[in-house]
């Protein structure tokens, strides 16, 4: 599912970046756009789950971090990502 999101996101950004970028252009497209809101909500939540899972392996193998403290830290990171992500999405949508 993330693969699809990433593809859509990449394509969108490359298209959007053509010929420069202004706030007005971005916001003109995102404000009140429910399809956009739905898509990016899914994207943010998926990423908030995916990133900590990947980092878990890195923490275990490269930082030798084991046990509950690591998983709690990752859960907090997941929460933080979801929180910041949704704030960003809502800020640009509302």
């Amino acid at each position, binding site marked *: 599912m993330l*693969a699809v999101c*990433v593809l859509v996101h990449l394509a969108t950004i490359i298209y959007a*970046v053509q010929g420069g970028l202004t706030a007005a252009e971005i916001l003109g497209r995102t404000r009140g756009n429910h399809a956009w809101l739905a898509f990016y909500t899914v994207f943010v939540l998926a990423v908030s789950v995916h990133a900590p899972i*990947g980092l878990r392996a*890195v923490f275990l193998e490269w930082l030798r971090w084991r046990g509950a403290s690591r998983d709690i830290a990752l859960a907090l990171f997941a929460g933080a990502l979801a929180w910041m*992500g949704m704030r*960003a999405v809502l*800020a640009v949508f509302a």
Partner: protein
Amino acid sequence: MDGNASGARGVRVKKGSSYWVAIVHRVSGIALAIFLPLHFWALSTALQLDAFLAWTRQPAVLVAEWGIVVALAAHFAGGLRVLALEFLPWHGRQKTLAALAAGVTALVGLVLALAL
């Protein structure tokens, strides 16, 4: 030196291509994990977006942006490789998947460089 002897794939090469693809996948993932909170924070300051966008015109930032998109493409390609390895029936030519991943990444990097 004959790199094909005894089934060894190049005597000096200690790590194969799959290793490097996996390392790129990991490092790009770490880069993205660091980048994402900053990205979200930047977007949430939507009211001052123009000022922020002006700042992103700086060459150093443009290069960094290109870098992070390449990282995303690399991580994406590596991820597809992992999914293919794990869910599709096994083929001997899995190394070509590594090459494919690298190729797709390069393609995206190029496209973005042109767009920017």
